[in-house]
């Protein structure tokens, strides 16, 4: 596919090397377990993506609910303890890790991680000089480059957080100066093997290494980030609390930014497959890209305990406003409005609001 080149083949879902032939994808309609949604994706994208409970399938794989993933991980743990009742937790975990973090699954995650990182770097490189200077590009790419995907085995890689083996969390953290890592809960590997979801999730976590709050912690600020942030606030993607302090308590800026960057990446992947999948398959791939955003715990929102915008906002306003996603779904382009309404009907980007 034009524009993707060899790297496109790097996002193969079975961990094959770049340049090898992509896996065969079903040419028939997807299995009956995934029912075509009657919702209009242009106006009801959130409902189209979130209304279906249980497993959703696209040609690359499936996404199950967080709880299904956790139950599967606990069942695997139970099976090991029943078979070997005398095992200490650490010994049982080694076996659990071998059962969950199989070479096939970890290779797939690493492949999605490499592809997402590569696409984020390319996205930064594509920005014109007025958006990012050469120095700023180097800085952002340098940050991304240093993020490590830390996966078991051995189980001791998560020695300080052995509870992760039965959890869904995939998360980024800056451990100490200059050291950044992403860890993936075992339940996530059991609940998700859709390549599109893996890419969105890993791109989101990678983007945290360059999000506005991480840069602020490094005493850095970029004018392009200010423009993107202003646009996200103007469009109410980032909620303006009564006393919003950037990167302070429950501020949604870093999460909205990570989602926005992840959409740039997954849109590339979806675009690539838009000529290979039929319409239904493509919609399922779109759905699975962000399917797990539907699972956000409601109690967190009630308690204002999340920095994430609501699932509706993440899906409709961040994901659904991307021009490629709209094109794939057959939705009309968002049209920029003139004068004081400038930008209100256009997807945010780093250049929006720049003087021409």
């Amino acid at each position, binding site marked *: 596919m034009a524009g993707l080149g060899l790297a496109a083949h790097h996002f193969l879902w079975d961990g094959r090397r770049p340049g090898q032939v992509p896996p065969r994808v079903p040419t028939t309609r997807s299995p009956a377990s995934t029912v075509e949604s009657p919702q209009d994706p242009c106006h009801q994208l959130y409902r189209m993506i979130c209304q279906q409970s249980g497993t959703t399938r696209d040609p690359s794989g499936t996404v199950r609910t*967080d*709880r299904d993933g*956790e139950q599967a991980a*606990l069942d695997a*743990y*139970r099976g090991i*303890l029943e078979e070997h009742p005398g095992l200490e*937790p650490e010994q049982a*975990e080694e076996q659990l890790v071998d059962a969950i973090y199989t070479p096939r699954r970890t290779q797939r995650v690493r492949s999605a991680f490499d592809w997402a990182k590569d696409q984020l770097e390319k996205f930064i490189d594509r920005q014109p000089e007025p958006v990012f200077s050469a120095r700023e590009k180097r800085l952002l790419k340098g940050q991304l480059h240093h993020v490590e995907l830390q996966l078991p085995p051995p189980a001791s890689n*998560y020695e*300080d*957080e*052995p*509870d*992760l*083996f*039965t*959890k*869904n*969390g*995939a*998360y*980024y*953290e*800056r*451990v*100490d100066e200059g050291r950044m890592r992403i860890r993936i*809960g075992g339940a996530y590997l059991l609940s998700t093997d859709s390549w599109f979801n893996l890419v969105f999730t890993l791109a989101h976590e990678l983007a945290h290494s360059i999000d506005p*709050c*991480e840069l602020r*912690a490094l005493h850095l600020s970029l004018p392009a980030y200010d423009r993107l942030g202003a646009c996200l606030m103007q469009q109410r993607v980032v909620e303006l609390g009564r006393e919003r302090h950037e*990167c*302070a*308590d*429950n*501020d949604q800026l*870093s999460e909205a930014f990570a989602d926005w960057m992840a959409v740039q990446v997954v849109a590339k992947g979806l675009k690539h497959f838009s000529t290979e999948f039929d319409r239904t398959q493509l919609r399922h791939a779109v759905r699975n890209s962000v399917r797990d955003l539907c*699972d*956000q*715990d*409601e*109690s*967190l929102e009630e*308690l*204002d*305990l*999340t*920095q*994430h915008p609501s699932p509706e906002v993440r899906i409709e306003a961040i994901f659904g406003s991307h021009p490629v996603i709209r094109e794939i779904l057959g939705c009309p382009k968002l049209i920029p409005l003139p004068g004081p309404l400038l930008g209100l009907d256009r997807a945010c980007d780093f250049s929006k609001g720049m003087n021409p």
Partner: protein
Amino acid sequence: MKARSFFLALALIACSSPGSTPKGGLAPGSSHLELSYLLGHDLYRFSFQADQDLVVARKFLGHDQVLEAQVDRSKYLELLQRASDILGKARKPANDATCRAPFTLSVQDGQSRLHSTGCRQGDEGTGIGKLARDAEVLMYFKK
């Protein structure tokens, strides 16, 4: 982000729902252990309520109780001791520190009550991950 509001909210959910820490002192032989933490977009809560020989454990995901089970008392007491040890050294992050994985831990044993908040990430000495693992193993597999 400042971590303070996370801890207030975690404490709020820990004190306002079933299985939460009882107010006031407990009768001799009674105790309570509770661990709440945020991981990604999921809020986990493990709660143990002991009354003489009966120990009831509950696991919550957000508002929803996903497990209730009677557990072995002696193993529970080991867990309670470990939680108390952790409480002695749990560190609260600075107000301006980024905290993506906050936790609250509380132990009530008879008249004494200990409560602490902290941040899991990059704080490999808290032992919260291991405590959560052992709480889950006890609930699910070692009743």
